[in-house]
């Protein structure tokens, strides 16, 4: 298995507060990896550093063998890395279909956007029904489908999902993770940030537990659940957790 994404010693934060102390992780080609942890542990900050929305203080990020930090944020999509951000961040006054077209703005994905659009519509039939509607007028679950669909429109080799289950009904979480599973089976690598560990375990094969900006445990899902590392990561235990 080849490594697609590799993060080493990442340190990042905002102005003078450091959120990420030392994050190292890797995602292989075709793999689904979960990033688990409590509120404020640094999951979203990791995602923002990967996509360039914030500039890290230190550390290394390589994607498909390329130094990602040397690439301007808006050019990272062209390399095949797409983020579905926390809180969906769809364009509220723009129609569903146009939101999706915006997802394929980058040169690499623009030529065959019609085909990609069809595949997104078959993944989320609801979006096809609502194509003319303004995105802001849809329910939270539909907006989340749109956010995932929009990220897929760039034809990524790696999809970053930041808390897709946030604020959704259990039924909607089920539908959404069904679709995420389908995306994973199509060969796209996924790095998934979740607080809903149960939902994450349904699709992920490996995971990292993070707490206070550090990786506290890593391993396969079975190893993580057995070791109790997750509990301590979520409940904020100060005892050093065993690395599985």
């Amino acid at each position: 298995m080849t490594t697609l994404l590799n993060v080493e010693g990442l340190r990042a934060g905002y102005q003078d507060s450091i959120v990420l102390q030392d994050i190292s992780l890797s995602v292989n080609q075709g793999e689904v990896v979960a990033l688990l942890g409590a509120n404020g542990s640094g999951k979203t900050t990791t995602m923002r550093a990967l996509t360039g929305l914030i500039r890290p203080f230190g550390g290394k990020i390589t994607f498909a063998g390329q130094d990602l930090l040397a690439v301007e944020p808006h050019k990272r999509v062209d390399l095949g890395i797409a983020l579905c951000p926390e809180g969906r961040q769809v364009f509220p006054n723009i129609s569903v279909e146009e939101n999706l077209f915006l997802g394929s703005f980058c040169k690499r994905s623009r030529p065959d956007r019609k085909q990609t659009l069809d595949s997104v519509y078959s993944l989320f039939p609801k979006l096809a029904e609502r194509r003319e509607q303004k995105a802001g007028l849809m329910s939270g679950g539909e907006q989340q489908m749109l956010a995932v669909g929009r990220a897929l429109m760039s034809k990524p080799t790696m999809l970053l999902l930041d808390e897709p289950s946030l604020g959704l009904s259990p039924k909607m979480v089920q539908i959404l993770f069904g679709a995420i599973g389908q995306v994973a089976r199509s060969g796209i690598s996924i790095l998934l940030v979740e607080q809903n560990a149960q939902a994450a375990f349904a699709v992920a094969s490996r995971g990292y537990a993070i707490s206070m900006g550090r990786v506290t445990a890593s391993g396969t899902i079975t190893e993580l659940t057995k070791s109790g590392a997750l509990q301590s990561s979520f409940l904020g235990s100060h005892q050093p957790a065993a690395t599985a």
Partner: protein
Amino acid sequence: MSLFWQCLVDSLLLGGLYSLMSIGLSLGFGVTRIINFAHGEMIMFGAYGAYFGSVLLGVDPLLSLPLVAILVAVTAAVVFKALIEKVLDAPHINQILLLFGISLALQNVAAILWTGDARSVSTPYSLTAFEFETLLVPHGRVIAFATAVVLIVALFCWLRFSELGRATRAVAENGQAATLMGINVSRMYMLSFGINAALGAATGAISAFLLTITPFMGFHMLIKAFAIVVLGGLGSVTGTILGAFALAFAETWVSYYVPEGNGWAEGVAFVVLLCVLIIRPKGILGQAVAVH
């Protein structure tokens, strides 16, 4: 009754010009969240461009309009890159001071280069008019209105149907999400500022045969454009057009029906501005823009 119809026609024609005058300001603000207080000077440079085109080269203002608009837009984009981009994240007061500073500098550069003399462009259609019984419709105003309509429709089509137009709307709604789509946000800022300038310059080029040209003509046009944008709702391009017609109607009605109304009409913009800020700060169609 004929006074009523004359007033109606005048309001409509003025509304077209006002729409063009303020739509660039509205678009520029919607995207960059910076109010271009040098907008009036872009109008002024457009007017001088058309004037010199006409006087030195004998070119009609309508023909020189595209070239003048492009020249002003490119210059504005350079100024944006060199100066304005540096204050994008600065407090609003810094942005306002910088833009006002640029405005004052440009006014005085124009005064040094071309003196403060008032000028005007005469064209074959400057002094002629359509006459319907007692109704008088000047050709120049009709041509200005038609030009404004063409440019505004072009802008709407560009925003609605082109790839970059769609990206512009995306940046206006959510800059970070737009970055995630692979859109170069700082380049889109520069582009929308350039379009803002081009529309200002176009307004100047068609004002060249309607109004008197001086280095300081831009300021009161800025005030009116600003009142219109606030009235329509900051960031709403459709609202801006409603606001433009509302101000045009109010001004024309005041100048026709209020004794000594011509003088009072110039103050209507200020009254409108005050009333909107007190009664409905988000304007007719504006989305609430919370700034912390």
